[in-house]
């Protein structure tokens, strides 16, 4: 008999209560239980960073956590950021600088970069490259992603004011 566990958590500012198997990955929970398919799974062993989400404000790999570990915590996935008609400045910058091609790794990059930019509002090229060195992109060669982050850094203080 498979045991299940009740969990309660906040995802994108909405409260959810679910009953899950203890072995269910947080990435699978977000994608298949909540239907938040903007979180993409690239490697399932914590290397590629595509499945990154914010967990209590910090970027984590949702493929390396179980859903039950998120009980009582707060998760932000890409769906909780901007919308098609109202992009977050970082999303807007990715569009302007062509910081994505196939778009599969993009949400992981963006969520990794949100707390980074909050802590480093004016990062240099090297700092940006370090910040994204845990995320793999196979399409862009990273240059336009770096450009997008620089662009976002210019835009984001305006939003804060």
């Amino acid at each position: 008999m498979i045991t299940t566990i009740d969990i309660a958590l906040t995802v994108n500012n909405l409260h959810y209560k679910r009953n899950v198997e203890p072995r269910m990955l947080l990435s699978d929970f977000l994608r298949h239980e909540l239907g938040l398919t903007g979180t993409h799974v690239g490697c399932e062993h914590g290397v590629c960073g595509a499945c990154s989400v914010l967990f209590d404000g910090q970027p984590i790999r949702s493929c390396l956590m179980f859903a039950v570990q998120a009980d009582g915590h707060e998760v932000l996935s890409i769906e909780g950021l901007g919308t098609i008609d109202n992009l977050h400045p970082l999303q807007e910058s990715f569009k302007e600088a062509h910081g994505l091609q196939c778009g599969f790794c993009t949400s992981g990059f963006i969520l990794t970069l949100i707390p980074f930019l909050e802590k480093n509002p004016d990062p240099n090229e090297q700092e940006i490259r370090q910040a994204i060195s845990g995320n793999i992109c196979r399409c862009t060669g990273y240059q336009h992603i770096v450009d997008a982050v620089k662009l976002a850094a210019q835009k984001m203080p305006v939003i804060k004011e």
Partner: protein
Amino acid sequence: MTMKYIGKRVQRNEDPRLLTGQALFVDDVDIPGMLHASFLRSDYAHARLKMVDVSAARQRPGVVAVYTAEDMGKDWKPGPPLVSPPPTVEDVLFHSRTQVPLVKDKVRFAGEPIAVVIADSRYIAEDALEDIIVDLEPLEAVWDLEKALQPGSVLVHDDLESNLAAQLVQVKGDYDRIRAEADLIIKRHFVIDRGAAAAMENRGIVADWDAKSQRLTVWDTTQAPIPIRNGLALRLGLSEHQVRVIAPFVGGGFGPKIMMFYPEEMLIPWIAVKLSRPIKWIEDRRENFYATTQERQQIHEAEMALTRDGRILGIRDDFLHDTGAYDPYGLTIPINTQCHAMGAYDIANFYSEFKVVFTNKIIATPVRGAGRPQGIYIVERLLDLAAKELGLDPLEIRKRNFIPPDKFPYEHVIIDQAFAPLIFDSGNYQSALEKAATLIGYDQFVQEEQPRLRLEGRHVGIGIVSFVETTGVGPYEGARITVEANGKVSVATGVGTQGQGHFTSFAQIVAEQLGVDVQDVHLVTGDTAEFHWGTGTFASRGAVVAGNAIHASALAVRDKILKLAGKVLGAPEEELELEGGLVRVADIPHQSISLGELASLANPLRGAVEPGTEPGLEATAYFGPKYGGAAFGTHAMILEVDPETMMVEIKRYVVVEDCGTVINPLILEGQIHGGVAMGIGNAYYEKLVYDENAQLLNASLADYLLPTATEIPRIVVAHQETPSPLNQLGTKGAGEAGTIPVPALFAQALENALPEFNLEILETPFSPNRLFELLQEKEKSR
């Protein structure tokens, strides 16, 4: 002609959906009642399958079905070949052996599927794999290309006399005669090894059979939805219109997503029909290493004959090509290698003979570059060695050998991958080289910077190599363009899209002719219900073949618009102009009609029309080039080697790219950056390591090193535009170009950085470890 939309840095139409997590990828498809598949794969690379017992798996709660080869009955058939051998060449030897859906008697590579479990969830399906009992009798594995051809070698396919899968000789001029007259012969043994495409999205497929409407819908991470539909229909005994294949957003392709058919691609739809239930299979990363195709392994014995002033008289290249366990993709890769082993140079005499070898490794099919990087590696390395021998500058020896601009179209006599004569349509190779040399500061670096840094004890080196890339091959693509009553334009075409920006660059081509905003052109691609003629996205052909089909179709729609508007506005067609979604009389701007209104008029609900009238502002057109266009360019880089760690820092990287007319420079630069990044991985970080049992030893992203943002430098891209005379837009392909010259470039720059060791790099992928080993050997021999 000045262009309004083509050539502009237009932001992409598809981005808002991708950026907000609203774009549909295959794993996002969710259908009520959907079941999940998981595959049992062989741990051995070569083994006899004695027995497989799935009875316990079938008993597990939540398991709906388990299939083995035996359970497939008469539906078990090897896959159809994807590409046939060249019919136009005499004496071509080709043994077609195609992949099987599930292993029946013998395992031929580690990862080959033996059974498939269908269950309520992926978790249960994977649990049930543990319940399956398999009896495999391991056999000696075939993994070494040279040993595989020796008499008495173990055979991958027992019904063949040897592991020789194919053989082809291509000849131009008379190499043997010219060899006798040469002042210098450079001859070397080159070893090139395997790498992975490693798209961030693994493969996946969802199949849904609706028994009531007798229709099959398949979502597939394929680069070629239309051939998949046609093949599935044929195999499943359905008519083509009963099968709809959708390649939605696909998370990177790079070649392996056009291997038709993968076992899973055949099986999942077959099971969906059997069970009348929707079924999803999503490959995991480990499977991606074991079950998705790879490329690049070749061993070359190559030589170049030259005069003492550095003119190439001829090249001879004999090589072995590893096709893995099967050869469904025919001779595409090794022919591409042959076609690029003369590089950008005017070479009159050429002899190239390849042998394709079966091994117990996963099937080799094209990966971004597709045989071209190997050919360029050979010719560029031989040139570098010759330059050293002759005391010539690497730039100078290249300039002495380029095909001059007035020699185009340049006929190479041999045939290309499409079995058409290899012809380079247009080019200006020397100017690309000179531009790259200027941008990287070649003379200044060599004369001032490098000597100064060397005095400081630093190991800095420069490299510069030229390349050509045959692109945009046939047969054809098509497109249908419709102006809708809301004034927006819809476009349907057949090629799949995996991040190349088709939704935008194709929209620009349409906007140029119809005078609408790029955002108002809505593209559907990769859905056979929308358009069902075409082949797919491969060989850097999207912007060339589909792009020109869209252009032709846009011209036809423009014609219809002008005809109707001329009548409605009472003005001659040549006085009309299309702009801002309106047709107006040039000198009388207020005399106009919107495209939407015109579309409604073209599709009346009542009344009579003239005989022969076609409804709507719609047209379908096709484009097939006579042969592919040859893109080209030069890459240059400056790197520094850390002699303690052998790590390399790339200080400067320059690309001069000429792919004819540029549709969208922003997108093109992205393609080049990504290509170079993959090339850097190919050159110095990524290598699939197989042991003597043909076991892949580094099948994870923790062990197979994809470059990250800290390994990839800023890349300076400059364009040069030599339009292709082969199509109206003048475009050539660009998707693979970035990757092609990088291994050759890396080798040249590394040698240049370490002059005291007199290194000869004759292999790729290279690595810090391998560099350390080579330097150690050199130290010892000194």
